[in-house]
């Protein structure tokens, strides 16, 4: 079987001592930072990205993937123990996870999250390995018109499925696309919007924007709120293993969560957040068994299902990135940035031109998931200790890591000034209620979209109908239109708003 040959190649790459160490360090660092409340995977990856510059590309990507899972897992730990979601995708884990912790069942809750995630991770990895090659074949058929339409679907999907105001999200995407265009135009050599600043002719560093908006913006906003009294369940975590009864409830929930997450992760704009929300909603709709704890009061299914779903989703959201080169969400947009730094142009050609990287990354995802379980369940005590560190110790350290990280990207102080500007802008976004994730997606896609649009129009000699006369492109655009129309329907609009407000 080809699948097994490929996986064997991947495991051969991933199972070298060096790469195992990098996967381990990635998971460890990711969890370490992800546990800290208020720092999501985006800020974590942006902060730790510079640590991978010196590594060979394969090792760097393996480590980054580890950081991503670690950050996500750390977020769940915080959700369960402190009633604070470490990141958006563990918002629903908070509801039942924290209630379990209050009843002295933090251990089983953490185990449910860990084991559920691990199972989902295994399935997600297999799906990725199975679906990547055929999808790549399809992708190779794509012309510029198809790519352009695909990006439209991706961007529309990202806002439709995200929370908050639809029109503001669209505006944020456009803003991101425009910011992405700053710098030298590849076709004409004209430096656009650079105001004669030499550093700006290379474009605005995406890392400076990510760190400014997601790092500094968040910190400033956190500091402006009075420090809430947090109840941390330290020392109460005994008896990690769930009971037999728990397992009986957990298993079907994990299976449902995994299935949902895997499917939703592939969708543009999907990934971890949407998967977790949907999985929780689904669990709530299923009937409670007699004697089972109701949802919202510490039902183990309310932890297991969304955690499985978000891990499966984060796994399968690599599929569009690795096969089409299009990031389906903001975390993957950062991964594109990371790959470009290592001179890898993500897209269908990676699998053929760089099979070791491709399959090594996939294999290391599974290893990363395994490491998380091994790392987290015994080390839970350390993470709890970390949660008791007061915020006034944490935020100067975060500011420092952001500053060091952004400087070391280009060894240029200009980027430090840019982070400060984008820190201010990020805070402004928070104040004005503008969700910043779509901006990052637009930022990465901006130059690509322009390039494909130009090529498509050049081939068609200026005829815009090329996007609707080519069947593949037309159907992609139709999907985007349907998505938009569907969310704008009054009944669904109301439901969508409810889904993200409640819970």
């Amino acid at each position, binding site marked *: 079987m080809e699948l097994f040959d490929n996986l064997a190649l991947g495991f051969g790459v991933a199972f070298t001592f060096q790469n195992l160490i990098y996967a381990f360090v990635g998971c460890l660092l990711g969890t370490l930072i992800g546990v800290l409340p208020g720092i999501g995977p985006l800020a974590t990856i942006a902060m730790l990205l510079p640590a991978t510059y010196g590594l060979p590309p394969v090792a760097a990507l393996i480590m980054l993937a580890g950081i991503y899972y670690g950050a996500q897992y750390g977020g769940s730990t915080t959700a369960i123990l402190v009633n604070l979601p470490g990141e958006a995708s563990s918002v629903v884990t908070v509801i039942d996870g924290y209630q379990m912790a209050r009843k002295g069942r933090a251990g089983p809750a953490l185990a449910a999250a860990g084991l559920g995630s691990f199972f989902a991770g295994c399935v997600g990895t297999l799906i990725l390995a199975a679906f990547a090659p055929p999808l790549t074949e399809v992708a190779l058929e794509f012309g510029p018109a198809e790519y352009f339409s695909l990006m439209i679907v991706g961007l529309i999907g990202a806002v439709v499925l995200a929370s908050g105001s639809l029109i503001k999200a669209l505006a944020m995407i456009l803003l991101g696309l425009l910011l992405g265009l700053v710098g030298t135009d590849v076709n004409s050599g*004209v430096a*656009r919007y650079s105001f004669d600043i030499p550093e700006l002719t290379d474009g605005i560093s995406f890392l400076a924007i990510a760190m400014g908006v997601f790092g500094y913006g968040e910190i400033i906003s956190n500091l402006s709120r009075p420090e809430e009294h947090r109840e941390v369940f330290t020392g109460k975590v005994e008896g990690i293993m769930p009971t037999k009864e728990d397992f009986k409830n957990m298993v079907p929930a994990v299976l449902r969560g995994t299935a949902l997450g895997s499917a939703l992760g592939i969708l543009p704009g999907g990934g971890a957040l949407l998967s977790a929300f949907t999985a929780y909603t689904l669990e709530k709709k299923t009937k409670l068994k007699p004697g089972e704890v109701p949802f919202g009061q510490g039902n183990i299914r309310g932890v297991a299902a969304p955690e499985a779903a978000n891990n499966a989703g984060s796994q399968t959201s690599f599929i569009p990135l690795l096969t089409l080169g299009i990031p389906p969400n903001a975390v993957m947009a950062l991964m594109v940035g990371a790959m470009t730094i290592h001179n890898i142009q993500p897209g269908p050609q990676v699998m053929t031109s760089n099979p070791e990287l491709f399959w090594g990354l996939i294999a290391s995802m599974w290893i990363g998931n395994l490491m998380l379980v091994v790392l987290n369940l015994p080390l839970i005590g350390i993470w709890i200790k970390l949660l008791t560190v007061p915020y006034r*110790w944490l935020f100067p350290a975060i500011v420092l890591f952001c500053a060091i990280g952004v*400087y070391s990207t280009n060894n240029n102080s200009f980027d*430090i000034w840019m982070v400060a500007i984008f820190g201010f802008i990020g805070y402004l976004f928070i104040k004005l209620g503008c969700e910043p994730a779509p901006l990052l997606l637009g930022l990465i896609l901006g130059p690509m979209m322009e390039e494909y649009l*130009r090529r498509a129009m050049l081939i068609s000699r200026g005829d815009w109908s090329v996007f609707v006369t080519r069947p593949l492109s037309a159907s992609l655009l139709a999907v985007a239109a349907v998505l938009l129309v569907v969310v704008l329907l009054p009944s669904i609009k109301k439901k969508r708003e409810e889904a993200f407000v409640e819970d």
Partner: protein
Amino acid sequence: MALASQKDFFSGLMFTAVGGSFALGATEYTVGEGARMGPGYFPLMLGILLAILGTIITAQSFIKGHPGGDKVGAFAWRPLFFILAANLAFGALLVGLPSIGFPAMGLIVAIYALVFIASMAQPGCKLKSTFILATILAAGSYGAFVKLLSLQFPVWPAFLTN
């Protein structure tokens, strides 16, 4: 007329202004035509689109919003100022400002400055604990970034190393 959402009102204005300026800037470059797009074509399109969306958001802010007017609220000037100032001080001290002849002081000095300034973002910071934190971070960064990852930094002040 009362605003239903102050946040939307101002964010709409922001989008319109930014979109408008990008579109205006785009006209400085060759716009070209569909078949041969100049560097101004795509940004002009996007800029106009953004300005339109911004106008819609502003217009909607009179009708649609949350009860209570969805106020923007006061700016947290204290953390805003100190966090950004800490960052700027770090940059200035790390590599210096050659344009005004300010010498590079290197990583260690920059870290102390950053931690002290950033700590002031929260009221009631203590000098001693801030000093301990700065020392830990300076030692840790030296070990991790300079020694372990061998990233290129000026570590010590320029007048000491030359």
